[in-house]
């Protein structure tokens, strides 16, 4: 019996003009795996993540998410993307954002889940506030709530710990654990050694190419810093 793949890339590459951000890569991530994506700045992590989420078109090859072409309607239903920069509507409160995103993804019983997430991140009192006016850390917490309030099978996260305080960081790690236990696939681009160490697998990118693909039982510091 073949293993079901949550993510599959075939010769996936991306150029920006005459600069190659990601050389054609082959990457398969089985369902339920917890994968850490590491590499120095400019190594191609964000490009790969944006290609998987459908925000970028590949220059070469193709990517599949849950067996569907990245960016297709089915893939969008499968994959939840937490960007490195939180983006919100200027005129919607945190709670309105949560309702909107959850309902767009077909989740009608969103209220309890939303309140639970708000409580975990200490945002209950700010549920009616505009996230566009928040500090960087609070914005990041609100963005995390949005990524988790919707149903997903694959979670793709880009530098999620930026701006988070220690309690926010702990809650996020707990959410990762919960999702992993539920059999969700996680792909987390990070420089956080704890997250990398807790992963099932580490993929290191260097200059747009896979420099390491294996167990986290290695010199993580060198991988994370791109050594």
């Amino acid at each position, binding site marked *: 019996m073949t293993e079901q793949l949550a993510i599959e890339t075939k010769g996936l590459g991306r150029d920006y*003009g*005459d*600069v190659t951000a990601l050389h054609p890569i082959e990457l398969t991530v089985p369902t339920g795996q917890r994968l850490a994506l590491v590499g120095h700045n400019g190594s191609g992590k964000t490009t790969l993540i944006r290609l998987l*989420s*459908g*925000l*970028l*078109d590949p220059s070469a090859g193709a990517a599949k998410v849950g067996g569907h072409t990245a*960016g297709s*309607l*089915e893939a*969008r*239903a499968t994959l939840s*993307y937490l*960007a490195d920069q939180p*983006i*919100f*509507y*200027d*005129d*919607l409160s945190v709670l*309105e*954002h949560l*309702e*909107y*995103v959850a*309902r*767009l*993804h*077909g989740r009608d019983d969103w209220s309890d889940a939303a309140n639970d997430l708000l409580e975990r991140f200490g945002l209950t009192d700010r549920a009616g506030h505009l996230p566009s006016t928040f500090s960087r850390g609070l914005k990041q917490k609100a963005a995390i709530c*949005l990524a988790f309030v919707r149903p997903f099978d694959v979670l793709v996260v880009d530098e999620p710990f930026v701006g988070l305080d220690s309690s926010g960081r702990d809650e996020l790690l707990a959410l990762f654990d919960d999702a992993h236990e539920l059999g969700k696939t996680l792909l987390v681009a990070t420089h956080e050694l704890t997250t990398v160490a807790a992963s099932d697998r580490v993929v290191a990118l260097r200059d747009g190419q896979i420099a390491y693909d294996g167990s986290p039982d290695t010199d993580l510091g060198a991988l994370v810093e791109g050594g």
Partner: protein
Amino acid sequence: MATALTALRRTRRARRLGDTEWFDLAYHVYLAGIFGGSAIIIASDYIGDAPLGEAAVADAFAHGPAVLGLLAVLALIGGMRSGCEGGPVSVEAADVVHLLLAPISRSRVLRQPLLQRMRAVMFGAVLAGGVAGLLAAQRLPGTAPSWTMSGAAFGACIGAIFVSSAAIAHSSRLPGWAPGLVAIPLVGWQVWAIIGGIVGPGDSVGSLALWGFRQQPRDLLGVALVVAMIALALALAGRLRVEHLARRGDLVSQLRFAVTMQDLRTVVLLRRQLREEQPRSRPWLRLPPRNGGAGTAVVRRSVHGLTRIPAARFGRMVLVAAGAGVSAGVAARGSTAAVIACGILVFVVGLDLIEPLSQEVDHPDRTFALPQQPGWLHERLLVGPVVLAAPIALVGAAACAAIDPPAAPAAFVLAIPMMWAGMSGAVLNTVRDDQDPGSGGDGLLVPPEFAGFRDLMRTLLPVVASTIGTLAILAVRAQPDAGMVARCAFGLGLYVALVRWWVVHRVDLRQRWETFAAGARP
């Protein structure tokens, strides 16, 4: 899911309406009314109201469809170009992340912004067409309402062609070179239709503008094609590329803000970003490393910046300079108003040419951390642009000479000083943005009630400064001899020297003014 989308859009629309500053809006309408009305009165006076003779009317009806058809062809190519660069739609950055990545039909999401864009562009084009029809009615047979209607219908078609072709080009992922490839035969064909009297591709749309007097059922073919283009564009809306939408979302809101603030420099910058116009990673030429004084370093920095200008921007500068030359030629042949077009075009070329200076002004923290006066720095940053302006000016001179051959010698003598004088407006526009981060001196002694007027002046004055140089065309037209050409060249030189003096000493002058103003306060 679709219900959530509809509900959100309704809620947000209601909020936007609630947040609308109606007084502000009324003020804008009032300003638009005054300026628009004045422009119509001036144009009406310029066109006159004496009915055209029979031969002239026959000539207008014979060549009108082809000439106006050229507008349709240009709208098609311009639209395709916009589509290849990611236009015509832009959505909020939050819509990209939350809406376009949700499992909801993209056609459903994107059709509305596409329709909104189409509506806005068509509305502007209908207004322009209607006014043009109204003005045409003064001299052509037929009633004013019928000419206004036909002008408006023609304008609607032009607007629809632009947006539809942009959307179709975008969603069918045409490569960037495709509009150029299509432009050569189509424009050539249409120009041949104007000169040679054959039927051109834009004729049936162009002929629609003449329905104020003459109705030809075959013109409806053009309308049918436009309707088909709109339908196709809407059908393909779901195929608009998310990548382009994501990039444009943020840029377009900045662009709108810059337009609101009448910030021409930022508009140019953001337009470049929208077109994904990046400096060349490989310069056209590499200067060998050199030691030397600080002044040499600044001059070299300006040259380094220019060696990374992308080919597309060079091409654009040459084309706009040629356009300025054509306007100068038209002015030399008798159309005085063309000097304004020439001045504006030279101003636009200037904005592109002085990029090294603009980069410095965009980074004031760095400038004011240097142990030199900004004027000293800015003067040297203009050395490269001033040199590069010379060959570009000669392109304009050649275009002017082609339009008005007897003016060729004067054109070639005056082109370079006129280009430098034109650049002056761009320089003034850029350096006035240069503010010491530590000072709060902008708008000294100007009460808030006059802020709008001040902003308008700040926008217009640089363009006027560029246009001053083009007045030499009128002087030479009035007295076309070598003595006048020499006097104009000398006058332009003095003008450029005056602007240079201002650029070098403006910070010092401003500081003296601030000290004086502070002393005058109670």
